[in-house]
């Protein structure tokens, strides 16, 4: 469902940072889900001034296939900064953005490969000295004259919070943002991958010292009964779940009153 775009002026520049995603079960490279939603948000807000940026190895087929998928969403070009694997791209992106800071920078919450700490947007925000809003789902309006924007932030249980943030800002896009559009082959072929070589880059030395294994299943927490005697432990183990604890009301007026009281006390009304 498209939001009304008239609340966003036409001279806003939006940049989206994308990465190569990985399917959780098969490991196949694909569009990263949150990054695709970031592009979707950018396309809905400012179709022509959307700048999409990828920093990473660009020459292998995996990367180009996935970048073509991103192009298939209707982007004219993707700006690629070609750095080798295991580079710390924070400094690279910092250089790129400090030269020309866009009004809005959109990223996903965390990457689908590697360390996936989600720190990059925070580091960029700190170094560029601009505010960051985490987990947004919609951009409601951007007012360049007043210098602020209104976004919706995702809260647990499907709730949304309205946030007003000063321009320029960085926002991470939550998984509950509107679903990204399908990738079209024609657009993918027409789009351009503009590669920019980068000679000065930092290798992430710390990460090379870590050991990475496949995720093991985390042990489930057992309910340990703090009982001193064997009789107590036996009683706890064989205790039936309390069934008849609830109130049963036969009068419809009284029951509706009770239900309303409970709904108010739980805070849902």
């Amino acid at each position: 469902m498209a939001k009304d775009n008239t609340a966003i002026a036409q001279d806003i520049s939006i940049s989206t940072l994308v990465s190569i995603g990985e399917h959780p079960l098969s490991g196949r490279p694909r569009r990263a889900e949150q990054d695709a939603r970031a592009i979707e948000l950018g396309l809905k807000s400012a179709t022509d001034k959307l700048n999409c940026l990828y920093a990473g190895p660009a020459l292998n087929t995996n990367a180009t296939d996935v970048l073509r998928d991103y192009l298939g969403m209707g982007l004219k070009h993707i700006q690629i900064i070609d750095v080798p694997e295991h580079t710390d791209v924070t400094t690279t992106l910092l250089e790129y953005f400090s030269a020309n800071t866009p009004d809005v920078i959109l990223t996903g919450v965390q990457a689908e490969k590697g360390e996936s700490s989600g720190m990059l947007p925070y580091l960029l925000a700190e170094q560029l000295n601009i505010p960051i809003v985490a987990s947004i789902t919609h951009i409601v309006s951007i007012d360049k004259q007043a210098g602020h924007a209104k976004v919706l932030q995702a809260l647990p249980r499907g709730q949304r919070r309205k946030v007003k943030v000063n321009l320029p800002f960085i926002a991470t896009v939550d998984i509950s943002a509107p679903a990204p559009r399908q990738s079209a082959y024609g657009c993918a072929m027409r789009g351009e991958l503009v590669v920019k070589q980068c000679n000065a880059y930092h290798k992430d030395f710390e990460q090379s010292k870590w050991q990475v294994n496949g995720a093991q299943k985390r042990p489930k927490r057992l309910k340990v009964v703090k009982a001193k005697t064997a009789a107590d432990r036996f009683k706890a183990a064989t205790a039936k779940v309390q069934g008849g604890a609830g109130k049963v009301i036969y009068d419809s007026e009284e029951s509706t009153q009770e239900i309303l009281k409970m709904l108010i006390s739980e805070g849902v009304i």
Partner: protein
Amino acid sequence: MHDIFRRDPRAQWIGRNRLHPLHQANSAQPKRGPSGLLRKNLHNIGFIGPNGINRIDRSGDSNHSPLNRISVKPAELTLPLHQVEEADFYILVALDLVSARLTSHDRDTLGLAHQLANNNNGKGAVLAVAFGELKEDKLETAGIDRLIHFDSSEYQRYNPEQRCVDLYNIVNALQPKHILLPDSIHGGGDLGRRLAARLGQRAACGVWKVTDEQLLCRGAAGKTDIIRPMTQILLVLEECCEPVSETRHQSQLLPFYTAAINSSVLDQGNLSVDPSAVNLAEAGFILSGGNGVKDWPVFHLTAKTLGATEGASRVSVDDGYMPRDRQVGASGTWVTAKVYIAVGISGAIQHMQGIAQCDKVVAINSDDKCDMVKRADLSAIGDSTVILNDLRNLVEQHRAGQNAGQNHQYEGVNHGKG
């Protein structure tokens, strides 16, 4: 002279003779024999059964409790107080505090902080920082040695930049050995990353196991495990450590003053979300209809009035009254609602599996012996249409009463699905 056991022959003679006027067979004090051993009175266990014969029921679940039994409550254990007068170092923990209470994730983080403060004979203190209101009544057993509480009205709303600056000032002033935050969606993950960026340090995110010098973190969005050396800032996952349960703690308030800053990120309040747009698995309030719902338009209208997400049992979905993605149960969605109202649902075991995680269950049914009524915390027995209509009218009246008191503008924005 008080510890010598002296017989009173007259009292013992009276005690042996039930017909004596001064005989009190059922005195509360347990009788003791000559060597001090407790004597059981064999004649007053059991009750007179239906056929006049004395019955002893040892299964424990009959209504006839023995007349003499003084129900002994388990002695309230007072846990030992863990006192820290002079702390060698601090372990800083920033609490999440959902609706002013400590979450289980907070308690796990405090448990880990306690472990880090005290293993290898360390003498650290766990310093917890609480933002906003704190209404927790079990604060003593949470494991907090020192507490810094920011409770001005500023902190009632979302102000991450102010909180980050406060934590930054605390870290500079007190130089904690470790900084722990719960890596959660309730604000801990956001705040921890802001702080790490501000301090210029590399935080370990998604930590789920801490050994002495090594951390085990989740990487690649949960697909890999990373073993890395210990860092100062840890963002820990749920159940990373056992919460504190063996000791009480001081929770001594430490005063701390920080300046207010101009935030660039301002909270404008929550948006009222259309309940039908919320994912059923994470909805907080669900109205679920089953075979006993005869009037479906009334059901839909009530759901709309209450602002509840609609759910259904398998029977209603199979009959076509509700779409398949609304099915609650073992083969449908497993819901985690705070309040679950089941209308006309009998409570088949597969449905019960789906609502196992719900906090409060309300059953509206015409049958008071069904399993749903047994499971529910509140049951209304009667005709579902009548009860739903009554409930709807009552809620409308309540809302009208509230609106007369305050002028509130509700903006409803329909997000649609997805």
